[in-house]
């Protein structure tokens, strides 16, 4: 069974700084997708960024980018120029051939003014 591990339960960063959220996963599959979801205090889960395992190029979405290390089974999220609106729970998630989305426990990020 696939597992997703987010070892940092909580982080804080100053506005405009850069922060990196870590995630590791375990799978025997070769084709899969990895995701970072954001859940603000209002509770609506929002997709931040997606990475296809077959792509070597790291995904980027504006201030959000990933560092995907397939051999190490590592999938970290970098947030540049942090904004107050980035304060939220961040979940790393895995989706393989079973179609089931497996989430990590999440990490609480606080951006301070």
């Amino acid at each position, binding site marked *: 069974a696939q597992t*997703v591990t987010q070892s940092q339960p909580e982080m804080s960063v100053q506005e405009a700084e850069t922060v990196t959220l870590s995630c590791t996963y375990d799978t025997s599959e070769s084709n899969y*997708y990895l995701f970072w*979801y954001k859940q603000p205090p*209002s*509770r*609506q*889960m*929002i*997709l931040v960024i*997606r990475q*296809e395992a077959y792509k070597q190029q790291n995904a980027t979405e504006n201030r959000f980018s990933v560092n995907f290390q397939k051999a190490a089974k590592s999938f970290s999220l970098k947030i540049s120029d942090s904004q107050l609106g980035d304060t939220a729970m961040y*979940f790393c*998630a895995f*989706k393989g051939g*079973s*179609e*089931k*989305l497996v*989430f*990590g*426990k*999440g990490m609480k990020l606080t951006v301070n003014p």
Partner: protein
Amino acid sequence: EAGVAQSPRYKIIEKRQSVAFWCNPISGHATLYWYQQILGQGPKLLIQFQNNGVVDDSQLPKDRFSAERLKGVDSTLKIQPAKLEDSAVYLCASSLVGGPSSYEQYFGPGTRLTVT
């Protein structure tokens, strides 16, 4: 485009009572998911529908939880009887079928259930 709708947003019940949650997915999304998110944890899939058929219900506690998706659109999730450990946020999500777009799930605001 309207997002995934859920109701109610909050519900407080006593243990052994029953409760039902409703979800309306994004128009055109054939796949619908129900997740349970206990405080401090990531969402856990309870059941996945494709149209009105069940794809995966391996983690649904079938002795007390039931779900249906009549006509392949709206869905209801029921708990009867509720236990204290059912206190959680119940999230509904939907996605397209087929192709890369099917890998993106869109979530509703959730229903926060408190069982006392």
